[in-house]
């Protein structure tokens, strides 16, 4: 198919976007067939950052393998860790203390906001506006500082362990989160002024990259891209885990299915996360932050599955245990992989500039796709 001079038989040009390209935010490789500016076909090529994490996990114990999962979707490492911890706890039948549960949800939601902040900046940068990136980082840094204080890390936290969390929250934690909420609420209007309300931005986003609800389901798209098409798929609502069923928050749905709908879902989701944090931050129960577990964890023979909602969509951990100290087989269902698969369908017939915008709204994290 691909000829030497980079043209197809019918004269269309083939260009490689990536693996080193500013639009792909990593080492994603898209082979694009274009006719002038119009996209005929998008073919994602993976494998540039494959570290065989799933195979690696087979030789790590149930305490150790969680650390590796921080390196998959590094923007929602808390939530990845959370899923693995939940899965192991299900197998062990461990009761997690209430304090740990609340801390976990708080961390999850802070991570979600941080991830969406970064996405917002990167999204605007994909469209050629550089300034929003720095504005987004102003708020994101605050979250990173909070994480650093409590977890000891800013990106790959490894804070959730089977049975609870690794250590208790820092004494400043509650105050700093409240300060962050105040900061966030005072700055969120800037986001709308700078990007959302911008006429150029709206023209670039509206009616572009349409994904119908049926296609979203058949491609396995989850998270904000699916909810932008009106598919209700928030795992926090559909398969509640931890204490999400006791919390007041809405599942954000937009029905347009275009890039702007996916954009609005994430913007509105940040506000919901703030709402969840506000409910919990003053109500962290006293008690242990970790349940008593054995030094060496052994899962009973069987299969265990846990689904959670990361910032990008549904993340699944599937463990097959033979009863030993390490998983027999492990499989991660990463949201980015399925979301990427819809890109070709969305991008056909649109302009090259729009492809970058669509990739932005899918919020791809390449190590999550490639594992």
């Amino acid at each position, binding site marked *: 198919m691909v000829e030497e001079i980079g043209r197809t038989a019918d004269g269309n040009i083939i260009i490689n976007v990536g693996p080193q*390209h500013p639009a792909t935010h990593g080492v994603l490789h898209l082979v694009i067939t274009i006719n002038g500016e119009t996209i005929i076909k998008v073919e994602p090529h993976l494998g540039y950052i494959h570290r065989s994490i799933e195979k690696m996990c087979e030789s790590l114990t149930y305490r150790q393998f969680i650390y590796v999962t921080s390196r998959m979707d590094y923007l929602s490492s808390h939530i990845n860790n959370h899923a693995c911890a939940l899965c192991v706890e299900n197998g062990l039948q461990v009761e997690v203390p209430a304090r740990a549960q609340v801390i976990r949800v708080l961390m999850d939601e802070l991570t979600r906001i941080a991830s969406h902040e970064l996405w917002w900046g990167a999204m605007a940068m994909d469209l*050629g506006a550089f300034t929003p990136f720095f504005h987004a980082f102003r708020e994101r840094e605050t979250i990173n500082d909070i994480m650093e204080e409590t977890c000891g890390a800013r990106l790959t936290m490894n804070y959730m362990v089977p049975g609870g969390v690794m250590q208790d929250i820092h004494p400043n934690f509650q105050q700093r989160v409240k300060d962050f909420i105040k900061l966030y609420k005072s700055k969120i209007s800037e986001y709308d002024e700078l990007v959302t309300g911008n006429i150029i931005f709206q023209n670039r986003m509206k009616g572009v990259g349409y994904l119908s609800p049926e296609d979203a389901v058949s491609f396995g798209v989850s998270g904000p891209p699916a909810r932008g098409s009106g598919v209700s798929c928030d795992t926090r609502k559909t398969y509640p885990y931890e204490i999400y069923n006791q919390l007041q928050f809405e599942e954000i749905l937009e029905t347009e299915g275009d890039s702007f709908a996916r954009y609005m879902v994430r913007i509105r989701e940040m506000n919901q996360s703030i709402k969840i944090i506000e409910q919990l931050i003053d109500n962290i129960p006293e008690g242990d932050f970790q349940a008593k577990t054995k030094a060496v964890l052994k899962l009973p023979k069987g299969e265990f599955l846990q689904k959670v909602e990361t910032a990008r969509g549904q993340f699944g951990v599937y463990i097959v245990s033979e009863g030993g100290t390490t998983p027999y087989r492990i499989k991660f269902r990463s949201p980015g992989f399925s979301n990427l698969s819809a890109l070709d369908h969305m991008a056909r017939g649109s302009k090259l500039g729009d492809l970058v915008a669509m990739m932005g709204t899918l919020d791809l994290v390449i190590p999550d796709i490639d594992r």
Partner: protein
Amino acid sequence: MGKLWEVFMLSFSKISQLIDSWLRATFNATWTMVIEMVIAGVCVIGLFAALGLVLVLMERRVAAWIQIRLGPNRVGPGGMLQSLADTLKLLVKEGMTPDGADKFLFNLAPFIAMMVAMLLMAPIAFAKDFQLWDLNIGVLYISAVSSLMVISILMAGWASNNKYSLMGAMRSGAQIVSYELSAGLSILTVVILSGSLNLNEIILSQSDGWWIFKGHIPVIISFVIFIIAVTAETNRAPFDLAEAESELTAGFHTEYSGMKFALFFLAEYINVFIVCAIGATLFLGGWMPFHIGHWEGFNHVMDFIPSSLWFFGKTFFLIFLIMWFRWTFPRLRIDQLLNLEWKYLLPISMFNILLVTVMAILGWYF
């Protein structure tokens, strides 16, 4: 004493006259002309280098200010020498020529970009009676020469033998050819009002007020269109589709490195300066101080501010405006870009020019 005061006033015209009279007294007419041309050439190159350094630093500072960060602040006092250090870096870098490239055209393109920018410098009046070439068709000359810019971009994109470069060049071709129309039409409004193509006469016609104030709303509309069109013509964001970093890596100059890249980079900033200088000349009175009708006293006070300061002040204000655009707006898509020109700006400009013509005939301006 009087001469000292004038030197203090940075009166370029007096300095140039002094040099001219001294040369005429010392050499014969032919040599005087040759020496003066050499001096002018050296001055243009010097101005080029200085403007490049200042504008790059200014861009980075403006960007930093908008993006709530500090910007260059390590090299020299307050980061003033940053762009000098960058130039040094670019000078010592290898200027690569890709294997598949058309070597002659590839190496020629940056020089054409530079040459066009230099040629455009000729008819601009930097201060009172200070102009390289007092051309009687200055406006026409500028619109003619500025369209040559697209040739260098197309040449660079084609000769690079890179698909990204080619796409960037094609976009740029479509863009510059389209936006030249509304830029030209908005310039025409001022030509109609002042009745001259000579830049100096256009400036003198604004001695009782700048056209943007005298010409009512039609001239303000054409000023806005002019600013939009020249932003597009110089490939600046939000119309930077030729470079489109997130889509085409760097568009037409993807394959360029070292000093060849620096020439493109410099040419872009010089072009921004020139279009802003033209905008300032046509709409904001060039070196003409801020005068209001017959307020003799006020006008006289304004005259004390040197004319070069007026010119550079206005020009840098417009440059700031264009930089502000770049760091605020997202990029347009190619079809939206062409729609904006052909469906909105061009019809508006055409209607506007009719309005201005009627206004000029009936004398409905101050």
